[in-house]
């Protein structure tokens, strides 16, 4: 990894940046994400005080300190639960959750799946760097099998999670992927995530240049990016390798096809981000370009579904109970249903 998109020395002196010194390693992919989020917030026209960032533990989870919004740096893996409680009582805020592959998928695995099935309205940015950074280089639940790390000198024996397949399995209502090295695309995806009502989960490939440098270079570097990435857009055919290749879908079976004399764009699978069954296939395009390399990795908004949010349903119950039983009177509550007099 030789260059980065953001300069660590000079974070944009924008409205949404806090007075705290950013303390990620120089060259970390986190800088790029921070910058895009700050830019998006500035453009969104939101007031700073109505934005809340909740995080767990890990390098990424320091994120809230660097934004001049409300922020809560929680404990390892529990950010989704904190978000669930906050959202239940404050449907008015814009809530963002910052997490990493270890935080969300290992120690917080149980919480993230329940956040997704409940569809709490929050923008989740899952920084995936396939390594534990803050604890200095142990393999994570997304590290590929065989990964040699400080805790796996002979290679990891664990099969990794496919994060977005997990999200789809938990009935996530907004599923997207982007990368630190493509900030423009990231910003578009983040804007879509922000607009979605429900749990928007965006997996961000983020390079840890200290402990796992180059983990995603097949997707991010000029020489290999075109062949290994598939940028999906709603209503457009699935094309990659500069339009020379596409993906067809026949009998629910995706196949890579060459675009030319025999097969044309018309033979390609057309992306429908509202199609749940197709999304289940799309998240399964997960070949490791280093060892498999058949399918390119999809980026962009893979799936969107409108489903009522958890907090909306909770508030509706309170509302309905009030309509049925009235506002609730403390004295009536204390009195209960059965009383007797002692005279």
């Amino acid at each position: 990894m030789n260059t980065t998109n953001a300069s660590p020395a000079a974070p944009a002196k924008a409205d949404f940046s806090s007075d705290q010194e950013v303390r990620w390693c120089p060259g970390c992919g986190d800088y790029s994400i921070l910058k895009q989020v700050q830019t998006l917030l500035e453009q969104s026209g939101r007031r700073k005080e109505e934005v809340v960032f909740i995080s767990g533990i890990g390098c990424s989870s320091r994120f809230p300190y660097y934004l001049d919004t409300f922020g809560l740096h929680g404990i390892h893996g529990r950010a989704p639960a904190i978000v669930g409680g906050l959202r239940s009582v404050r449907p008015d805020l814009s809530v963002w959750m910052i997490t990493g592959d270890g935080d969300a998928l290992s120690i917080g695995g149980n919480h993230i799946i329940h956040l997704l099935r409940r569809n709490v309205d929050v923008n989740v940015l899952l920084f995936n760097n396939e390594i534990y950074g803050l604890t200095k280089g142990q393999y994570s639940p997304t590290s590929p099998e065989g990964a040699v790390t400080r805790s796996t000198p002979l290679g990891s024996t664990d099969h990794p999670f496919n994060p977005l397949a997990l999200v789809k399995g938990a009935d996530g209502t907004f599923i997207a992927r982007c990368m630190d090295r493509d900030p423009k695309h990231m910003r578009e995806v983040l804007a879509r995530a922000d607009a979605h009502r429900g749990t928007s989960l965006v997996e961000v490939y983020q390079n840890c240049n200290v402990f796992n440098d180059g983990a995603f270079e097949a997707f991010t570097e000029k020489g290999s990016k075109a062949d290994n990435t598939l940028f999906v857009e709603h209503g457009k055919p699935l094309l990659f390798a500069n339009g020379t290749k596409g993906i067809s879908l026949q009998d629910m079976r995706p196949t890579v096809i060459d675009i030319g004399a025999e097969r044309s764009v018309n033979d390609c699978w057309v992306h429908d981000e509202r199609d749940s069954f197709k999304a289940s296939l799309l998240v399964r395009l997960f070949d490791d370009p280093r060892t498999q390399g058949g399918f390119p990795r999809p980026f962009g908004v893979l799936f969107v579904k409108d489903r009522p949010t958890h907090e909306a349903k909770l508030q509706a119950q309170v509302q309905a109970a009030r309509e049925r039983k009235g506002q609730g009177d403390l004295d009536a509550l204390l009195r209960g249903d059965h009383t007797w007099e002692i005279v």
Partner: protein
Amino acid sequence: METPAKPKTVEPRQNVVILFAGDSGDGIQLTGAQFTDNNALFGNDVSTFPNYPSEIRAPQGTLAGVSGFQLHFGSVEVFTPGDRCDVLVVMNAAALKANLHKLKQGGIIIANADGFDRKNLRLAGYIDEADPLTDGSLEAYKLHSVDVTKLTRAALEGTTLGMKEKDRCKNMFVLGFINWMFSRELDNSERFLEHKFGRKPELMEANRRVLLAGYHYGETSETFTTRFEVKPAPMPKGTYRSITGNQGTALGLLAGARKAGLQLFYGSYPITPASDILHELSRHKNLGAITFQAEDEIAAIASAIGASYGGALGVTASSGPGIALKIEAMGLAFMLELPLVIVNVQRGGPSTGLPTKTEQADLWQAVHGRNGEAPIPVIAASTPVDCFEMAFEAVQLAVEHMTPVILLTDGYIANGAEPWRFPSSADLPTITPNFIQAPNDGDRFLPYRRDARGVRPWALPGQAGLQHRIGGIEKQDGTGNISYDPANHEKMVRLRAEKVARIADRFRPIRLDSGPPEGDLLIVGWGSTYGAIRTAALQMQAEGHSVAHVHLRHLFPFNKGLGPLLRKFRQVLVPEMNSGQLRQLLRAEYLVDARGLSKVQGLPFTSEEIRNAALDLLTHNTTAAAATQA
């Protein structure tokens, strides 16, 4: 109605302890609760102890499957469900075998004869299937063997109910009969049936018929010549209701939130014996209460922290194993300095322990069980009614002092019920959240700038100019920014501890529950041992002993008057349902030679056990041993 063959006499009693026991599917809890209601409505003081197996339907007819409901009611004040019972109602052989030792000599046994067939006798472990109802082994008691099953079926002859449904009504026969025996009317039970089976008139009618059959059986059967009468108790005038400890906790939380002007958010995960708090709160959504059944115990407390951060009153509750899972998050709440109430309805431990039995063994966990120095106020409720008061106080302390607060109750008072002369909302104090509306340092906002009590402001998301970041990492005094400065860390540890210690400034002066202000022996109790200790202490005082009783509501920090009080007595006895946890805290804090009385059997103390230990200490000045098996 037939005319009774013999005239029935009515025998007045001051108080009666009755124990209903049967298979966990026999409807014992319902029978007990209904009879309790009838007595409470009549004006008796009541105290109850439901005791049931942890299996939902343990194997029928076995000792493991026996469910019990003990009720103490009286024309005098009663403080416990009673040490031993006057009347034992058993639905089968196992129920008799499991509970006979609790019956007083000469006590009354009412046995369902149909529950003593060969199979039941074998399952209960009676050798050679010898029937205790007929072999003379119960001569020391007044035995009444009644064919409850047969009589129930007879009462339902001609109905379309199946045999199973008919047999399910037999608890109503018992209820009807017991109401006759204690000269109670059936109106309330009939109303209850109408309410319960309103949509199933056939079942309602069947239950009503059996209820009346049981009542008439008492009146007409020649074997019963005596009825009992327990007159109303001289309780303070007013309007009463019945309340269990878990209900009390739920209502205390709701009342506290209302008096603080906060929405209540209750995050919890199902666990015995705390789940009834969730059930109760979820019925009151119209008060704005949000209940959240989380994916696990950790999420339950973390969601409550999130809610408090958002400006609601976050509450979570559990029992021992669940509390263990919440401990890391308690540390976070402590660092964030946000209001949070954590209720531990203690049960037998360690690990899964005795889920449906009671214990007080989580005191050390509450006081000490966190990483780093994280003192959290710990308070405890002593009776079902006190659960209301202490839950209210927990809210008050948490909200006004920006701190998590642990409230300890236990399975004994959580499930037990007593009459409650409930307050009016106007009698409850207003709770004032420490909200801040504008920056507190020029145009800067310092989230950890403390007031004279050491309390930081509560700034809610959405308020312009108050944006700030908080977290579990050590923070700089004032600004709350991350700080690894050694001196700052030590200062912050001290400031947080001082804030919690200062909460003791607001406690009312310590007050003896009974006894002289100085003397030979002070019995120090906490939590659900209250009734047993109070009964023992009052009895000993009447016998002329120099014994006083103080019951601690505040276990951390202690009441400032406690140290001086301990020194006014020659000896100190600390009865606890653990191996001596409060005792050790008292010894460490006050260098007092407190003696312990331990009972770790999953069962509450009897007052007799307390009295014996106290007498022993007064006479022999020996360390009291563990409570003897009842």
